[in-house]
């Protein structure tokens, strides 16, 4: 049973455009929502994360928008650059419960020069 649904599976954006990746979750016990970025040949690395007590978190060109009532959250990459080309995973976790980190299926982002 997939508890975190991620879309789209792949995304192609022109340089300077906005990339948007969406995730939806089912388990209302989740209380921490990280996004991981994975470059080819590397393991995933934490990019940005949000807790459900805020609706938005911004770090540089990366923004998470969170809608608790809809159980949805999304990653926005502003002014997308070719160097942002990577696979992005959303995830959800129950804090303090190491077992309960659940990943989305991933989005392969390609930013064209």
């Amino acid at each position: 049973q997939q508890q975190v649904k991620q879309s789209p599976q792949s995304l192609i954006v022109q340089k300077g455009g906005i990339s948007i990746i969406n995730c939806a979750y089912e388990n209302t016990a989740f209380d921490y929502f990280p996004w991981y970025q994975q470059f080819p040949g590397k393991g995933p690395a934490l990019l940005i994360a949000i807790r459900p007590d805020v609706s938005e978190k911004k770090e540089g060109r990366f923004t998470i928008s969170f809608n608790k009532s809809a159980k949805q959250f999304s990653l926005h990459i502003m002014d997308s650059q070719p160097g942002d080309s990577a696979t992005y995973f959303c995830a959800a976790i129950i804090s303090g419960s190491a077992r309960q980190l659940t990943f989305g299926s991933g989005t392969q982002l390609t930013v064209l020069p």
Partner: protein
Amino acid sequence: DVKVTQSSRYLVKRTGEKVFLECVQDMDHENMFWYRQDPGLGLRLIYFSYDVKMKEKGDIPEGYSVSREKKERFSLILESASTNQTSMYLCASTAGGIRGNEQFFGPGTRLTVL
């Protein structure tokens, strides 16, 4: 910086062979994890360990076993490799408790079973 290392980047094995994948972390983390990554399926948890000699099954433990004899080392074992175990295998570690929200990943081992 946290460093998680995996013993091999690429492995090619034959059906029926016993395969060992090794993972070492240098941050004294309590929790360690093994995932497999397949296109369109994301990261699926195979096993995790929250302490030395302790282990718990993840979502897809069938065909795998694990060993954690030392805190810094977590091994994944394929007792008899099969072609459907061809995949990318990722190891990760986290601190314990509420500090453990961020997982630190190794670079992965791409295993091909012929």
